[in-house]
């Protein structure tokens, strides 16, 4: 079981929940288990380009992106791009 933490905007699309406990072997599986998963991927199944995903503090892109293994992981943190004025 791993806990997925989503940004506030995404939580607003999922009844306000920011934390989800999911069973998944990879980051991609964990993200697809979320109630607003359609907002995380394009029609090719690729992550939207402005999403960053960290597994226990490490950038998932350095470990295979969606294929990043979750064995032993505690937290998947999804962070949207920062935007400024």
């Amino acid at each position, binding site marked *: 079981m791993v806990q997925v933490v989503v940004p506030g*905007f995404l939580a607003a699309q999922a009844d306000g929940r920011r934390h989800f406990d999911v069973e998944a072997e990879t980051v991609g599986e964990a993200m697809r288990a979320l109630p607003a998963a*359609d*907002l995380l991927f394009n*029609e090719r199944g690729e992550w939207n380009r402005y999403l960053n995903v960290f597994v226990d503090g490490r950038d998932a892109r350095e470990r295979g992106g969606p294929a990043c293994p979750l064995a032993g992981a505690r937290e998947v943190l999804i962070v*949207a791009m920062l*935007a400024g004025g």
Partner: protein
Amino acid sequence: MAVGVLALVGTRKGLFLLERDDDRRGWRVDGPVLDGWGVYHAAVDARDGTFYAAANHVVYGPTVQRSADGGKTWERSKKIGLPAWSGLTVNAAWHIAPGRPQQPGTLYLGADPGVLFRSDDAGETWQPNPGILEHPTRKHWFPGAGGLCCDSIQLDPGDPQRMYVCITSAGTLRSEDGGQTWLPVNKNVAHDYLPNPYPDIGQCVHKLLLHPARPERLWQQNHFGVYRSDNRGDSWERLDGNGLPTSFGYPIMIDPKDPDKAFVIPERSPEYHYSPNGRLAVYRTRDGGQTWEEMSDGLPGQAWAAVLREASASDADSLYFGTQSGSFFALAEGERWVEAARHLPPILSVEVTQWSR
């Protein structure tokens, strides 16, 4: 039961619902709903009252959203997408058009990259139109700064098989067989930047409207001029002399009662998207575009406003438009503009409907 006007005002940060009672005294502003979404266009399906919105987010992508309870709660359509073989992905949802009265549950969606979707299950799922997706001229289309957007969808009320779409920059395409095949109809429509300024395809149509009372008559505000066609797009007449300060602008409005009337909101030039001479004004023709007159009573004396292609609407009684500065204007009795709301986020789209509660 009071009957009034409901304006769906899409902004960069959500959808606002502006309601005017039939006493015309004022507007009530509700919202935002779809908070945080860029609402490129929203419309009410007159067949059943469902609200639909083409809502986009820079991080979370393009969506279609619908509400069966007047905007209180919203549901996303299933993911809109294009087949892998096309090599294309959907960049933005642009324009929603409910289908014909005799086709309940059918809707159309214009999207970037120059694609048309159809739904036959009231917006639950959307299928790309093969005739547009695989159009033989697609290699000659190219996107503008807003993308390769399909921003106009017009259904001929007199012929259930005829419809039009406009794509920036492909031009106007007409179908006579219910959307199976599409013919470019851009004769005499200029593209001043190209070596051949009158190509068959590649025009930059900003907005196209069909007149419901005379459906063979089409109006378009183009990147390079204002045009009218009286033969379903077979040929076009350029109309932007005789009173218009510039030929450039995005929106166009029509009077559903009078096919000879149209309204545009000129901007300075393709390089400078704001009111010419610091003066926001709507220009009206009452003679099919031969002459134009300014309508600025009630508009600010100084303004450098920009009005986007989806950000105007009209009904039998009035005209409506919103600016990127967050002001929403409606034409009141006496042909005076009233600023019904101000300080909204940048306005992307405006639609109006009769509304009762």
